[in-house]
Structures are given as structure tokens and as C-alpha cells.
């Protein structure tokens, strides 16, 4: 609907001043948020920010390059374990360990990207799925990573600043998140991003036009893995304790769910999807404490279902969301937004 009149309009990071204004408002709101919200909600915000980082990275791969990855929990785990190990064993400072772990994840992404060059559809899905499962299994057997017992995150100090509470960490996490999202937006607007999109739309045509498929496909995997790795490194400090069981297949599927619900191939969509589903995830974990609804669920579980399995309602809800989104709004939240915008712009027609 927005007509582009020249090249420079196409490559702008922000398409209008309105967006810049609202982004400013958002950043301001994020800066004030921890001072007004309760401590638990700061934790929730941290959790959501982690999801945003990973899902934006995943979206670069799935939404923009059109490759399927069902193994992002693997990169996430590499990032988390990498950061902690670099800090405790090699005594790297946090701000150095984090990108290093991200680069290690990117290296693995590059390696996974190599076989992925020849695969598509179900073959790629099972190969990446296998990667995710294998990584977690292998990490769970290595001594330096604490095997089954897992690892505790070390104390976090950046320069003179000693980070202890969720609120402190919030101020580390949010700037990194904003930076990475802007970076992703920037990547999409450059030559690299256009190459990604051309591969998604028609890889043979792209190759004929001179896009180096080998380079850009592996690059997409590497960049996406870097995001997941950095996200994992930060996640280790949100939880303060990591174990191999955390990074299971459902985590990969959750990331994919967030990207799809948000809307593949857009920038704000996955951010919204990650926030929304991240929040829903945390809420559903203690479903019995939701007023009225929780009691109803409890009564229902006691008479027809089991109380031990009540947390699995989460799975049912997410499954339902996935199916409904795919059936009725394949573009996700972003699609709903576009339709609403179009409706009001065209109103009353």
C-alpha cells in the first residue's frame, strides 16, 4: 500500500517519522517501566526480551530466507553454556563472553547451513530438528558443562557495576535487545536482506541474477544462530541456573510458534508474537492462580482430569493458537495489523 518512489525510500530503516516517534515513546516507556512495575513483572519483561531476540533472529532465517529451522534450542543452548563457560573457565568479562558465545553459535549455524544448502522442506525440518536434539544430548554429557546437574551463572559485574537483581539486569538486557532488533531491521534493508528475500521468493531466479546461494544461505543460518546464541547467553543470567533439560524440542517449537504467530517476514510481527506468547507462557504456567478461571479449571481437573497434568493445558492452548492462526490468518498478528490499517485507510470503502 505504501508506494515506493525511489531506491532510497526502499532502503530507509524507518519508513516514516511517525514510526520514529512511536519508537521513541516505546524506548521511554521501557526506561520508566522497571521503576513503576513490581519485581515479578520486570522478570516477565526480561523473559519477553530474550524471546524477542531469538525470534527476530529466527525470523531472519524462516521469514526472510525461507529456510525451516526446528533446532534453534540447540543454538540457544550453545550460547547459554558458551557464555557461562567463557566467564568461569576463561575469565572473560561478560560483555566479551556474550558476543564470543554468539559467534560460536554462529559457527555452528554455518556448519548446519552447509548440509542445509541441498535440503528443503521435510528434509531440512528433520535435519535441523536432529541438530537441536543432538546438541542438547551432547552438552548434557560433557563434564565441563556440569553434565545432568547443570551450571550456575557466575556473579555478573560490568566495570564497577555489580548486577544483582532482575531490575539491574533489565538495564543490560533491554539496550541489547533494541540494538539487535534495529540491527536485524538494518540487515533486511541492505543488500544482504534483499538477497535473503530473493532466495525465499525464487532461489533459482536469485541464483541467475547473481546471488551467491551458498554464501547467503549459510550466512542466514549463521546470523540467525548468532541471535539465538546471544539470546541464550542472556537467558542464562535471567534464570541464573541452566540444565540440559531446559533446551528441549519444545523450546525450538515455541520459538517457531512465536515467529509464526507474530507473522513471518515482518519485523514488528515477531516482536509482538514473542512478547504476547512469552507472557501467555508465563501466565499459563500457574494457571490455577488466575482468578475465577483457575478455580474452574481446578474443579474440572479434579473431576475429569488429573491435577498432576494440569500444566499441560499450556500445550493445548498453544496448539490451538497455532492451528487457528494457520487456518484463519497465515500472516499472524502482522497480517491482522495490515488488514486493520488498510481498512481504516480505505474507509468508507
Amino acid at each position, binding site marked *: 500500500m505504501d508506494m515506493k518512489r525511489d531506491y532510497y525510500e526502499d532502503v530507509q530503516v524507518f519508513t516514516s517519522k511517525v514510526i520514529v516517534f512511536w519508537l521513541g515513546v516505546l524506548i521511554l516507556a521501557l526506561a520508566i517501566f522497571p521503576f513503576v512495575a513490581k519485581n515479578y513483572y520486570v522478570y516477565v519483561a526480561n523473559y519477553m526480551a530474550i524471546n524477542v531476540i531469538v525470534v527476530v533472529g529466527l525470523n531472519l532465517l*524462516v521469514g526472510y530466507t525461507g529456510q525451516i529451522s526446528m533446532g534453534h534450542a540447540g543454538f540457544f543452548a550453545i550460547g547459554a553454556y558458551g557464555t557461562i563457560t567463557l566467564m568461569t573457565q576463561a575469565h572473560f568479562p561478560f560483555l566479551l563472553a556474550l558476543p564470543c558465545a554468539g559467534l560460536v553459535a554462529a559457527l555452528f549455524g554455518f556448519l548446519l547451513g552447509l548440509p542445509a544448502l541441498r535440503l528443503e*522442506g*521435510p528434509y531440512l525440518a528433520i535435519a535441523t530438528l536432529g541438530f537441536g536434539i543432538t546438541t542438547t544430548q551432547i552438552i548434557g554429557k560433557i563434564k565441563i558443562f556440569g553434565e545432568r546437574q547443570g551450571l550456575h551463572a557466575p556473579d555478573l559485574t560490568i566495570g564497577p557495576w555489580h548486577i544483582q537483581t532482575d531490575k539491574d539486569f533489565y538495564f543490560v538486557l533491554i539496550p541489547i535487545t533494541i540494538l539487535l532488533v534495529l540491527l536485524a531491521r538494518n540487515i533486511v534493508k541492505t543488500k544482504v536482506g534483499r538477497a535473503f528475500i530473493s532466495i525465499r521468493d525464487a532461489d533459482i531466479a536469485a541464483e541467475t541474477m547473481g546471488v551467491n546461494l551458498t554464501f547467503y544461505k549459510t550466512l542466514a543460518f549463521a546470523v540467525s544462530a548468532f541471535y539465538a546464541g546471544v539470546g541464550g547467553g542472556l537467558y542464562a543470567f535471567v534464570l541464573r541456573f541452566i540444565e540440559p533439560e531446559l533446551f528441549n524440542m519444545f523450546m525450538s517449537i515455541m520459538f*517457531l510458534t512465536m515467529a509464526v504467530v507474530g507473522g513471518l517476514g515482518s519485523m514488528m510481527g515477531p516482536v509482538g508474537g514473542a512478547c504476547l506468547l512469552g507472557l501467555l507462557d508465563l501466565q499459563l504456567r500457574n494457571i490455577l492462580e488466575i482468578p475465577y478461571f483457575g478455580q474452574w479449571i481446578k474443579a474440572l481437573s479434579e473431576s475429569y482430569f488429573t491435577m498432576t*497434568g494440569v500444566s499441560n493445558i499450556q500445550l493445548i492452548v498453544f496448539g490451538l493458537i497455532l*492451528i487457528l492462526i494457520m487456518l484463519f490468518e*497465515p500472516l499472524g498478528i502482522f497480517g491482522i495489523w495490515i488488514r486493520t490499517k488498510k481498512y481504516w485507510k480505505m474507509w468508507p470503502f
Partner: protein
Amino acid sequence: MVDFLQMVLSGIAVGSSYALMGLGMVLIYKASEVPNFVQGEMALLPIFIAFMLLSTYGVPYYIAFPATLIFALLLGCFLEFAILRRAKEPNVLGLIIITIGMEMMLLGFVSWKFGADQRAMPFPISAYDSIVIGDLFISTLDMLTLVVALVIMLILFLFFRFSKIGVAMKATQQNENAAALMGIKTKQIRMVTWGISSMVGSVAGLLIAPVLVEPYMMWDPMLKGFAGAVVGGMTSLPGAVFGAYIIGIVEHLFGGYVSIEFKSVVAFAIIVLVLCIKPSGLFARHYVKKV
């Protein structure tokens, strides 16, 4: 040498249940062109129905097992009819996501209903007896799995060769438009394919259930069956069986000679290796996109 043969034998026994899951996946992949992540859970719900019938209501085996299989058939048909068919202009990723959604719903439902306890299903033969052939041991349950898998493969072969529905299924898979023009109701055929696939998967599940019944029990066979199907080429039924047996055998040999710890991940290493050499699996013709 005895060790080696013993491992191969155990591998074949395990491979049989993978092969059944793989067959189910290939059937659906050929009909709907979607890697079916709900395959495991399509078997899981019937297993729990069987478990409930047998241990809670005390229904005899000869009624409970057929009832379970019929339920599986209906479940598969229902999933295709109610959900997958409704997708608008789906692409591969969209279809995968829909099957994952169905899988999460079924898994969530089963774990909510039955809790996460580990149980064992009552079964006519004990899971811990074994038969001795020369120096080799095989448990009676494994033997039964092997025999049942072979019988089902034979039935499927005959079904696709001689029955009218089977031939119609093959026609639909080869060229949907042509089949529709010949008067085949392709939508119904696809639905029935899902039902049959669900039934085949449930048989595999019923043969695992005497050892362990819990909500995550079908994950491993499903993934290994999928891996086997991918090794075999996703579009070839004999390929899926072959791939599944290869995975079962290699897994056991790896567990015996190299490292028991990494036994369960070796399947994925095999897939990556095979796919690097033949990107569409061993038995499928590589499809080259024309411009």
C-alpha cells in the same frame, strides 16, 4: 560374532516399530505432502484409550484392540477432515506448523487427562519372556513386533496392489487432477489415507505400550520413524521400511561398540550423512525444479 548378531537382531526388533511409524509418515507425506509431526500423537491417544479400556473397565483383549484400531482410524480421518483440509493456500512450513499444533493439542490433552505417571499396559504376552534361537535371545514381545510389522507390510502391499481403494490412493498420489477426472473422490481418499496411517502408527504404539505407557512415549519412535522415512526417501514405502531397519541396526551397533551414551543421537547423524550424499533420500528420485 555372537555379540554382533545379537545386536543386529535387537536392532531389527527395534527397527520394526520405527518402520511402522515411518510407513505411517510416508503414507501421509505421499497423500498430503506434509511431514506429519502428529504421527506419534495419533497413536498416543488410541493407546491411552486401549489402556483405559483394559485396566479401568476390564474389557477383554479381543474387543479392546480392534476398538482401539477403529478409534485410531476415525481419529486420523477426523484430523484431516476437520483441520488440515481447512488450511488456506498452505505452504510446507504452514502445513508443518498445523501438524505441530495438532500434536501439541493431543499431547496436552493426554497428559492432562492421564497425568505423567509411567505405567505399563496389560498385554496377553509378557514383555520380559524371551525366546532362545541358538546363542541369540529375543524377547517374545520383540518377536511379536517383528512378525506384526511384517504382516502389516504384507497387508499394505496387497492393499495397494489389489484393492480398489488402494489403487485409488496410488492414483491420487501420482496425479491428483487426473485421478479426480477418472471419478476418484480425491478428498475422501486423502482422508482415508490419514486414517490408515493413524492405524498403522497405533499398531506400533500398542506393541510399545506393554513396556511403558506415558505421554512422551511416542516421541522417540516417531522421530526415529521419521528419520528412517527420510533416509529411505519420504516417498517410497519400501524405502521407509529399509531406512527404519538401518537406523535400528546402526543404533544398536553404535551402542554396543562405540558409546552407549550417544546411542539415541546417532540416528540424526545418519540422516545428515545420507542427506549430504543423496538430498532426497536413498530410494526417491531427486526432484529437480524446472524453471
